[in-house]
């Protein structure tokens, strides 16, 4: 079931649009913000709230890469794998992260602390390589800096 707070937030977003179904991406983000990811029950609840079919909601949820349809860890690391970061050596950062966290792209650590995902260009090309954790951007990343960055997230 959606909480009253979630329904309120969804209604607030829907009010900016001519019909409420147009707010489905916002609704998915609102629920994910609180629950970490979108499970099947949330898909059905959002569908009911916006008077859509669950299949319609799921077709949108599965399209956008930052809507998570699988559980993620407490903190999500998005490592930029696009061209400027490629040139500036994101692969070395990826290797170091794999060693430190013992996970590959798409995986979550056993203690559910981190999920590691590749992400398309973060728009930080003049400070490549870059990564983002829970929406916080880190620029000019070096392997040496990783421990201190990761230690901010428990």
């Amino acid at each position, binding site marked *: 079931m959606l909480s009253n707070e979630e329904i309120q937030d969804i209604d607030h977003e829907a009010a*900016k649009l001519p019909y409420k179904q147009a707010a489905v991406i916002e609704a998915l983000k609102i629920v994910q913000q609180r629950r970490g990811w979108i499970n099947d029950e949330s898909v059905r609840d959002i569908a009911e709230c916006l008077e859509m079919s669950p299949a319609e909601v799921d077709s949108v949820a599965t399209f956008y890469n930052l809507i998570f349809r699988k559980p993620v860890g407490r903190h999500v690391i998005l490592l930029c794998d696009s061209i*400027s970061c*490629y040139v500036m050596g994101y692969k070395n950062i990826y290797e170091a992260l794999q060693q430190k966290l013992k996970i590959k792209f798409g995986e979550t650590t056993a203690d559910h602390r981190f999920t590691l995902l590749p992400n398309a260009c973060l728009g930080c090309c*003049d400070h*490549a390589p870059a990564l983002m954790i829970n929406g916080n*951007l880190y620029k000019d990343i070096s392997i040496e800096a990783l421990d201190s960055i990761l230690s901010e997230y428990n």
Partner: protein
Amino acid sequence: MERPLTQNIHAGRQPLSLKEYTTTGGYTALQQVLKNMTPKEVQQLVQESRLKGRGGAGFNTGMKWSFVPMGEDAPSPKYLVANADEMEPGTFKDRLLLEGNPHQLIEGMIIAAYAIQANISYVFLRWAYKKAAQVIERSIQEAYHAGWLGNNIMNSGFSIDMYLHTGAGRYMCGEETALLNALEGKRATPRAKPPFPQVSGLFGKPTIVNNVETLCCIPHIINKGAAWFQNLSYSEDGGTKIYGVSGKVNNPGAWELPMGVTMRELIEEHAGGMKKGYRLKGVLPGGASTDFLTEQHLDIKMDFKSVAAAGSRLGTGTMVVMDDATCPVGFVHNLQHFFAQESCGWCTPCREGLPWVEKILLSIENGEGKEDDMELLQMHTQLLGPGNTFCALAPGAMEPLQSAIKYYREDFDRHIREKKCPY
């Protein structure tokens, strides 16, 4: 040298507040428009200024506006959308404007909305621009409180609402019609044209989608005129341009410069030249979906026409430099991996062709390439080229591939011959 768009943006400083923006001449253009200009006059002035779309397509902005139905019989409401979904790999110019001077964008949007008589506007902002989201949301509220947004602004009879919409990922959202689908809460797949969005866009109503940098030029054109705007430029396209350089250069960054500076000036002067020990091997002049240019092209002007004449596109004007220690095959594989992943799957050539291209490139890079792979790649540059797909994603993806085969063929052949990556 004048830098109208970025003159008040300084690294490490907070974004301009409404008060600061107003004291530096902000919102005078809007007042001038509301008091003294008809929507058609605004359209004409912008058309005369030769402002061309800064998102990459380079279409005359005033002319784009002129296709919107006007008058009492026009459909209502009409919409104005700022495309702030900056996701072209290698591109980071709109971020500077969004984070540095938000009211410049908002004023540009209100004037653009007035010019087409749109009463509802959206900023479509990519998910990853968290700081920009905060800045824009706060600035929209400031503008409402000051009476620049809302009903009957400045007693002009013109009403305009503005909302921030943040995305949930996917490069496709930057494509004009896919962006409209995303705003409607749908999968971001492109729409058939015609009808063009100017006639039937968001929620089926007339809609203009303009890039952030394009909209930021508008207040300055109103304040100082079309001739002044044209004279900012070294070329026939009006204005300044925010250029960027990334890769192994000494001083990567973004700078507002006259439209039409040379690639050499950008790389050698502003970006400080190549890092010690590296040589320039190639350049994507305007983001991931533009053809490679090489050292022989360094003296061409970075404007729409000159870059096109050299066989590439100005695109977003933010270039990625490839150095001589970076493998061109690996470089192009990285690009094609991106495009294959970001294909929305709507049309078959793109959905099926790009993953195939990516696979071939990976096998070549891993030393498993075959003799006829080069023919296959060549074939794809034709089959996924302009006219065969629903939108510009796949043709854009083919631009760096076809030019890499042209300029770096020997590198591809060596991978296949030596059965390994020589880099």
